[in-house]
């Protein structure tokens, strides 16, 4: 059941790249996206970047207890969100996927509510910060245990196959996740079932401090797809157009019944692993600086400017607009207020059993 992607070859040594350092188009085919979408992609990149900065700042201000920054990962995240049909397809993201959430349209107030643990979080502040979610958009609540969302993503994929409505599931995870047994079990089951799931590894070369060579027996993540009878692709995860074209192709392929695929998006996280980490202990500052020079935003902005779709004034206006909406959303999320103590005892089951009634009463007494 393997249909090869028409534009891209699986298992290429070099990651697919479509936009050059100066914003030049490198594709062997024509760039055929309309201008509106091209601009929209840039807006989404900026939103994701500014959102991330805001989340980091909230943590520094003590308004949030934790953050896992996404700067450096935006291009692939935005491409994921643009490749799916929102509210129809499903996403099983991981904690760093704020670019997926913001692009998909998860309300900012919900995002900030979750980050600050207020009533604005539809999940009642049950999870620690950096666990995005959206029932309305079929985005399964992110969870902490690495790779543990991948088996459920495959289960959802199998259910989609049975339902036959053409839904697709996209699940994303880090490079470290590929070492977990759950990841393997899920990938293999998807391969056997030909489930419509696109697996996206945001390979930032580190799992906290552990670098890729200590993480993976194989040199690339993409080649692990061999083990599951599915194609594996490498893409420059900081090139939003390469990511989008590839993701659209693979989502379409899955939708048409040709089964799962694995994408390795090479990215880099600019910040520490999380607000609890100090990355200077394990990686040189020059390495970070070198990757920052490949930043997805200026590179893609240069492409837009070449096409006269963007300029400094547009940039300024956009940043002002985004910042204003972020400020407003933070404010709304904060003023929603904290969640009450006794909510702790709800939602363990559909109805609260006797022992939780007792425990709630004891705790309140």
């Amino acid at each position, binding site marked *: 059941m393997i249909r090869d992607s028409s534009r891209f070859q699986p298992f290429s040594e070099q990651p697919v790249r479509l936009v050059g350092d100066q914003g030049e188009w490198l594709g062997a085919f024509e760039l055929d996206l309309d201008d509106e979408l091209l601009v929209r992609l840039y807006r989404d990149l900026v939103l994701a970047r500014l959102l991330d900065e805001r989340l980091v700042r909230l943590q520094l201000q003590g308004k949030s207890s934790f953050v896992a920054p996404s700067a450096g990962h935006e291009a692939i995240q935005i491409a994921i969100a643009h490749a799916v049909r929102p509210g129809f397809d499903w996403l099983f993201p991981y904690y760093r996927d704020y670019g997926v959430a913001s692009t998909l349209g998860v309300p900012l107030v919900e995002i900030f509510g979750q980050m600050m643990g207020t009533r604005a979080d539809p999940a009642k502040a049950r999870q620690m910060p950096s666990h995005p979610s959206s029932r309305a958009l079929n985005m399964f609540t992110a969870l902490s245990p690495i790779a*543990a969302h991948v*088996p*459920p993503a495959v*289960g959802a994929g199998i259910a*989609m196959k049975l339902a036959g409505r053409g839904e697709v599931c996209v699940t994303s995870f880090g490079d470290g996740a590929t070492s977990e047994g*759950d990841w393997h079990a899920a990938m293999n*089951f998807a391969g056997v079932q030909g489930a419509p799931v696109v697996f996206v590894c945001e390979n930032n070369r580190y799992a906290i401090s552990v670098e890729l060579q200590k993480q993976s027996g194989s040199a690339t993540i993409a080649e692990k797809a061999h083990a599951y009878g599915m194609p594996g692709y490498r893409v420059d995860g900081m090139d939003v157009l390469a990511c989008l074209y590839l993701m659209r192709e693979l989502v379409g392929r899955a939708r048409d019944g040709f089964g799962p695929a694995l994408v390795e998006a090479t990215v880099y996280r600019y910040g520490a692993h999380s607000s609890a980490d100090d990355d200077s202990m394990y990686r040189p500052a020059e390495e970070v600086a070198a990757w920052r020079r490949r930043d997805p935003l200026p590179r893609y902005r240069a492409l837009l400017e070449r096409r006269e779709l963007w300029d400094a004034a547009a940039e300024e206006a956009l940043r002002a607009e985004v910042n204003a909406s972020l400020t407003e959303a933070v404010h709304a999320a904060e003023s929603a207020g904290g969640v009450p103590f006794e909510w702790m005892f709800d*939602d363990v089951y*559909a109805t609260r059993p006797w*022992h939780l009634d007792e425990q709630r009463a004891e705790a309140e007494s």
Partner: protein
Amino acid sequence: MNIVQAVTRTLSSEMERDDSVVVLGEDVGKRGGVFLATQGLFDRFGPDRVIDTPLSEAAIIGAALGMSVHGLRPVAEIQFADYVFHGFDQLVSQVAKTRYRSAGQFTAPMVVRMPAGGGVKGGHHHSQNPETHFVHTAGLQVVYPSTPADTVGMLRSAVRGEDPVVFMEPKRLYRAVKEDVPDDPDRLVPFGRAAVRRRGDDVVLISYGASMAETARAADALAEQGIESTVIDLRSLMPWDARTVLEHVARVGRCVLVSESPRTLGFMSEVAAVIAEEILDALLAPPLRVAGADTPYPYAQDRSYLPGPRRILNAVQKVLDY
């Protein structure tokens, strides 16, 4: 109808009733499961709804979770309860917490069936009773019926429920216990209610699952000696029916708690702790546990490991003599 048949027929009728019910696990297809609990389902409902999975319990439980989140009602089979540990994280960290962590935005109505218990010459890894691990995990419901009728009624409740259920099956009794079960598709046995199997005023015997057989035999032997026991089959371990237990133990004042999982932190530790907390003054003797040993399950001593009638009677004698 015996207990395996109770499982098979209930699965079949639930699949008939509701298209969203699917079965998955190792060898559940053509083979009908190694205990034949899914026999005939593959022929009847086809490979889309009766899914032979790769050999991975994490894939089975994790995929079932994704299916249920997406709207199906999966019934997963773990070939032996002992192998649930390979998919343990999916069960305790993911399945159990789906409703809670999303505040009910996503839920996981699903069933994980597993034959459990010793006495089948299966050694360490075909004999265990891991219910403690599930009961201690908030978010899971745990049941362990001991009769065909309860198997039917509780499996129906499990399949139709709103939350994940660990459905433990007493494999030693699979074909040993038979009874007529009325063919009423709406007869559900609700969770959290114990069954009082026998009434007597001298001692209360409490058990569940496969050990109900030994407990019943002990009660018979006691009756022959003129000692009348109340026998409670807990059936449901989370939630469990503390009210019925406390009522009878308070009335009688003496009890013996029988279960074959390892003694330390076996389910009966909880029952004993609650009895001591709630009705201390009603106790005429200490609540004594008769349990499996705190050893891995041995092969050679397969039967002696189990809390059999002799050990139960010894304990009853102690609480009566107290």
